[in-house]
């Protein structure tokens, strides 16, 4: 873990975020916590349902051993608080007094029913930014509809275009609708901070996860609006028709026909596998796209006897943008990630172990991404925050515990 006394604070140092979300929207606060914001996760006394989602450390289910929870909650503090009733609600409002950002993913209207809607929060703290992340947004005929990541991928156009033509759509690894929404949520929150810097007023951000998903599908809207085309499933053929998966003798590679054509075709020809690719019309990049199926069939026949790593190294030496199709396990042996210090060891003292976490997607020279604390145990910071910041006494804390508020 990094030294907390480092001279460079993170870019969001000094900002207080109250994270009321459950597992579906936890990444937005995580992105802020990684950059130095003080993110306090507020869980119901039973804990975020994400604590019950596996995988678990050593496959032993426990609310403090969920790797699913860990991924979304690194660098946050956590308290338990039932703010659906008083005095929990009043305690939350006191925390909101000094907060900069609240993130929530309740069903539309639920916060208002609890007396914690935008109007009430804005009245309590006019500088507060409220980020609401819901499946379909705060308005419209679907606003009360249920969704998980799969339903969002369906309704956002992400599922339809993955898989083989005529067969069932295939879902990607990871909860990519939630993830895309989290990035949009963090970006919009930064925008609201810039606006607040001018007039000291916060605002309410209505984020639709369906819409975030629709943005994260590269080509579907452009093809429909630009050409009236409904993009089909194409297997591994990229819609631009410059990429397709091929099979080497020991695994798969990604072909790319956008690099230096002369270098590629000379190499293939030297192997005696060029067939008609030596003809001049293939030098035209648009011709290569138009006849992609034949082109990739010829290249598939060329690569089938290569070992994929050998093919990759030779291709890259010629500046051909080839890649191996690897398992995610291979990331842990990747020399490039290792050289850049991508994976970060995080200590979990109560388990007596440390674990390798995926790290920063960006290296900031002046305000770095860093790990300041492992993911919080359930209720780990309840007493610390309620006692030190709100001045509650030991007796008051005991009473709240007895009432099931904390």
């Amino acid at each position, binding site marked *: 873990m990094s030294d907390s006394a480092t001279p460079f604070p993170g870019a969001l140092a000094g900002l207080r975020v109250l994270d009321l979300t459950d597992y579906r929207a936890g990444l937005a606060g995580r992105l802020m916590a990684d950059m130095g914001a003080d993110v306090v996760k507020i869980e119901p006394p039973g804990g975020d349902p994400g604590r019950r989602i596996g*995988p678990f450390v*050593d496959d032993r289910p426990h609310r403090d051993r969920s*790797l699913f929870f860990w991924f979304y909650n690194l660098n946050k503090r956590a308290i338990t608080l039932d703010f659906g009733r008083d005095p929990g609600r009043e305690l939350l409002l006191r925390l909101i007094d000094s907060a900069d950002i609240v993130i929530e993913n309740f069903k539309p209207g639920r916060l208002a029913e609890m007396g914690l809607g935008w109007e009430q929060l804005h009245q309590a703290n006019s500088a507060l930014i409220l980020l609401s992340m819901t499946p379909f947004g705060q*308005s419209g005929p*679907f606003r009360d*509809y249920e969704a*998980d*990541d*799969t339903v969002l*991928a*369906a309704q956002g156009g992400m*599922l339809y*275009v993955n898989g083989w033509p005529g*067969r*069932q759509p295939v*879902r*990607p*690894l990871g909860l990519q609708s939630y993830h895309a929404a989290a*990035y949009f949520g963090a*970006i919009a929150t*930064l925008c*609201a901070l810039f606006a607040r*810097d001018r007039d000291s007023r916060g605002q309410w951000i209505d984020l639709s*996860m369906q819409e975030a998903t*629709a943005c994260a599908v*590269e080509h*579907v*809207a452009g*093809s429909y*609006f630009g050409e009236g085309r*409904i*993009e*089909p499933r194409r*297997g*591994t*053929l*990229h819609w631009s028709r410059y990429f397709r*998966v091929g099979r080497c003798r020991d695994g*798969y590679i990604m072909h*790319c026909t956008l690099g230096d054509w002369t270098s590629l075709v000379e190499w293939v020809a030297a192997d005696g596998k060029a067939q008609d690719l030596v003809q001049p019309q293939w030098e035209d990049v648009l011709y290569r796209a138009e006849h992609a199926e034949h082109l990739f069939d010829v290249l598939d026949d060329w690569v089938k006897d290569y070992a994929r790593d050998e093919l990759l190294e030779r291709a*890259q030496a010629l500046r051909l*943008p080839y890649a*191996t*199709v*690897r*398992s*995610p*396990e291979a*990331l842990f042996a990747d*020399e*490039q*990630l290792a050289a*850049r210090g991508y994976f970060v060891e995080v200590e979990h003292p109560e388990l007596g172990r440390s*674990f390798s976490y995926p*790290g*920063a*997607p*960006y290296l900031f*020279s*002046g305000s770095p991404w860093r790990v300041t604390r492992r993911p919080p145990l359930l209720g780990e910071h309840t007493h610390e925050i309620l006692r030190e910041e709100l001045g509650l006494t030991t007796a008051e804390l005991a009473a709240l515990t007895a009432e099931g508020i904390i």
Partner: protein
Amino acid sequence: MPELPLVGIRVLDFTWVVAGPVATRLLADYGAEVIKLERKPGPPGSRQTGLQGDLHRDKRSIAVNMSHPRGVEIARRLAQQSDLVIDNFSARVMRGWGMDYASLSQIKPDIVCVSMSGLGHTGPRASYVSYGPTLQALSGYTLLMTEASGAPAGFGYSYADMAGGYTGALAALLALWHRRRTGRGQFVDLSQFEAVVSVVGPALLDIAVNGRTQEAPNFRSQELPAAPHGVYRCQPRDGNQDSDDDRWIALAVRTQSEWERFVVLLGAPAWSRDLRYRTLYLRIRNQAELDAHVTRWAAEQQAEDAMARLQHAGIAAGVVCNGADLCARNPQLQARDFWGTVTLPGGAATHVTGLPARLSATPGSIRTPSPLIGSANDYVLGDLLGYSAAERAALVEAGAVWN
């Protein structure tokens, strides 16, 4: 029109292809003045409609020849009047022009530079050439984009470019915010590879902690357990295009009460009383048999109707939207007026992707179509940099600027 949140921020934009333009497009939609510096002629094909129209809207364009010393001089002078310089080249390109952070911070001490290279500026693979589809192959997504088992079956597009683009926009805003607070600029070395690896999710910790080899997720729930959970083929639609007949519904039945409502909705068929489906644990264990029943039910359904009935029973469900569903007939996206419209120079209108985050006081907006290359030459060279008309003509004559 309400004020835009990023008003007053100027961006000198060297990005190209997809990921970089996605990042600067977001900054532009939210009000930054994005000046795209590019070559003429540009790549073949229209850039006012389709993906290209989406990528470059709300930006300005100047056509400057960076192979000419006076072109570089223009870029350096413009950097002095900018808050952010952003590129997605490998390290040597900006350094070669004297446009890297080390050089620019000499003439503009608080400049923010974000470089969104493929694999980062450091490390043994820094010079690898890559595109989004090759980066998602290196990251594990492509191998695990399969049906229950078998060869890769996707992606049909580049998710890596979108993930890289969002990460780039966030990086730029974080660095600009830091500067707002401290007055200090900095350099951000963003690896698009690391950006897409970072959204793999908890599977990476399962590998690191438990040493488990990851299997293709397909429709096994990656969140709260659910069964049935997946996509099921519905009745064909009598559409104008073949692909429009390919109808599917996605659904997730998670809790016991959802299961009971699901059974009622299906008309309580005899199979639903089978003891093998009595609890969630059993439904997951016997998911293949359960799926066969749901598949037979779904085949008799019209997808939109099934979605409405399932949702009214409180069950997560959604039509697997194709391009037409998404862009022309999704009741929710229509009601929220999600898709934006820009008017092209000829007067025709085209639709573009909207903004999924709506800020109540300073929403972003979609204002202008993708610019013609060099269309802001006079504004940038004249109004911002103070070149006279005669000097601008001389720059064109010298080959430093394209008209």
